[in-house]
Structures are given as C-alpha cells and as structure tokens.
C-alpha cells in the first residue's frame, strides 16, 4: 500500500514544482509550449526513476561525507548515457528533446530526491518515489506550459485554440511570463492548502 502512496504524494501533496520548489530553473526555461513540457517531463521522469534506483542500491556503500559528489557522478553519467544513446538510436526524439537532456543534470529534483528519499529508503519505494515525483514534475510543467502557450501563442499542443482575432500575448512565452505564471500557480496552491488546513 505504501508503494502507491509514495507515487501519489508527488502529484499534489509534495509536488516537486509547486510545493517543494525544486527544479524550477528548467521549468521556467522549457515551459514555452506543451510539447516541450511533455518532452522535458518524460526525460526527467526517466532519469529520476533510474537514478533513484541506483542510488538506493549503493546507499550502503557510500560514505555519508562524500555522498553528494558521488550522487552527482551517478546522475551525470546516467544523463550522458541517455543523451548519447538517444542521439545514436533515436535521433528524431533526441532532436526534439536535445536541449533538455543536459539540463536534467542541473535539475535539482533529481539530486533532491536522491538526497531526501532514495538514500534513506529501499529500492521499491525509491522507484515509487521516482515515478511519483517525475509525474508530478510533468504535471506541473504541463500546467505552466498550457497557460503560457495559450496566452503566448494562442495554441495548445500546436493546435489553435484561441479565436483568430486574438493577439498573442508574447510576454507569456518570454522569460517574465514564466515567472508570472509560476508565481500565480504557487499562490493558488498555497491558497488551496490554507483552505484545507
């Protein structure tokens, strides 16, 4: 039963973007369109699951004083492997996700979960945590990107949803738009949490 609760907690209650505020940098950078958000979300989820598993496996042989450099080595190596493999065997997908893959190394969700969860829990729960956090990040990215793409381009997933007379609000797909959107969504989350409590 705990396996499932570890998955679901990442969606809302401990959403990495809105609640833990981890990995906001890539969120802000790539959430200009829904397709980018989904791509980034998929890549993050994949790396997160794998790194969580590996780190949970090696947690007993890693001395605590040098755990961070080792986690980084593991994550960076993993991301590079994914990057190269994709470039060689799935060139089209790699082209679409190209810039996001190196960004995953610096995405603090990965290191954050390695440190906060995977290094303290067994492989199974770490896997669940990776799935949950990855999906939560994807969900958050998609929400931010949905707002930005609709306002900034008048489209959703590339399909026109706003009337033709709508003048796209360009600022939404520029950097300030990312901050505005994330700010409003976080305020909304806090408001909802307050109400519930």
């Amino acid at each position, binding site marked *: 039963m705990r396996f499932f609760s570890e998955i679901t907690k990442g969606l809302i209650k401990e959403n990495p973007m809105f609640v833990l505020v981890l990995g906001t940098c890539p969120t802000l950078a790539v959430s*200009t369109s829904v397709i980018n958000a989904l791509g980034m979300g998929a890549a993050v989820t994949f790396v997160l699951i794998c790194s969580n598993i590996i780190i949970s496996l090696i947690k007993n*042989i*890693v*001395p605590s*004083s*040098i755990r961070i*450099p*080792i986690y980084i*080595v*593991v994550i*960076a*190596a993993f991301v*590079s*492997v994914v990057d*190269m*493999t994709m*470039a*060689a*065997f799935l*060139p089209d997908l790699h082209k679409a996700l190209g810039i996001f893959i190196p960004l995953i190394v610096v995405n603090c969700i990965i290191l954050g979960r390695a440190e906060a969860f995977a290094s303290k829990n067994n492989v199974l729960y770490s896997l669940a945590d990776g799935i949950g956090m990855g999906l939560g990040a994807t969900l958050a990215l998609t929400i931010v990107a949905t707002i930005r793409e609709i306002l*900034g*381009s008048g489209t959703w997933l590339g399909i026109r949803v706003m009337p033709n007379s709508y003048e*796209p609000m*360009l600022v939404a*797909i*520029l950097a300030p738009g990312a901050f505005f959107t994330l700010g409003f969504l976080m305020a909304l989350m806090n408001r909802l949490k307050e109400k519930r409590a």
Partner: protein
Amino acid sequence: MKYYLQLGVILMVFCVIATGILAYVNSVTEPKIETLKAEEAVKSREELIPGCDFEEVKLRDDFSYFIATDRETKELKGYTFTSQKKGYGSTIKTMAGLDPEFRVIGIKIIDQSETPGLGANCTKESFTSQFAGKTPEQLVVDKDGGPIKSLSGATITSRAIASSLKEEIEAIKADLDKKQEQEVAE
C-alpha cells in the same frame, strides 16, 4: 589521514566506473552519431538541390560553399551554402540552394534563437518560401524597399537573413568569376 584516503579511493572508484561506462557508450554511439550528422547535412543539401554530387569549395576560414553537379549527366545544377549573420538576439544560420544563374532555389533556417513569437517566426514556411526564385539583387526586405516581406515586429531578423544571403551569394559569384577569368587566361 587514512580515513580521507579511503574517501578519495571510494570516490575514485565511482568516477572510474562512471568514466568506463561513458567511454564504452561513447565508443559505441559516436560513429553512429557522426554518420547521422553527415547524412543530415547531405539530406538537407539534397532537399535543396536533389540528385547531385556536392564538391566543397573553401572560400574563407568560416565559410565554404558546395558546387552541385548532376550525378548522372555531370551537368552543373547549382550551389549550396550556409550563411551566418547576427540577427536581433542570436546568430542566424541559413542554408540556401542556388541555381546556376544564382537565383535562390530555397532556403532553410538551420539555427537561430531569436525572440519567440517575433524573430523566431523566421523558421516558418510562410517566411522562407518567399525567397525562392529571388535574384541576389532582390534579397532586400520591404522596409528597405525590396520584395521580401519582413516578419512583423522583426525587421532586424528579416534583414539579417536577407542580407547574409545576398552577401554570400555575391561572394560566391565573385569567386567563380575570378576562377573563370583564370581559366580563360590559361
């Protein structure tokens, strides 16, 4: 002391393992990536001028163009090149194909990071398609009195693309004229 040495050794072991894995993956994937890249360059040249062999001519350190000759008849089909120029916020790389009379066959924006929603629209078909059939003299945007319709709100981007093509076509033309003169002289 021994403790720190131990830590160093553990860290090293991890790094060595990670490096080993990376080196292995790299050795497997690198040749494949290289061939894919080369194929891609050929493919985009092929898209512009189909059915040709390409011969590279180096004009400057950072610029070379390709002479396209028909694979069967060995007849001159045109030229392709990639021009670069600073737009509004980034360097825009444009690949273009020319026919033997130096008219543009088609262009393709290969790399740019201009303002989203404005300059970034230069990759759109509606913008690039208007370059087809233009002579170098016609590669002037409407704001400067030419026939190229510039992107709304992104005159600088449009101007950079048009003028970079124009400049390089003229450079290629000058180079070929010079070679022809030399041939005649010989």
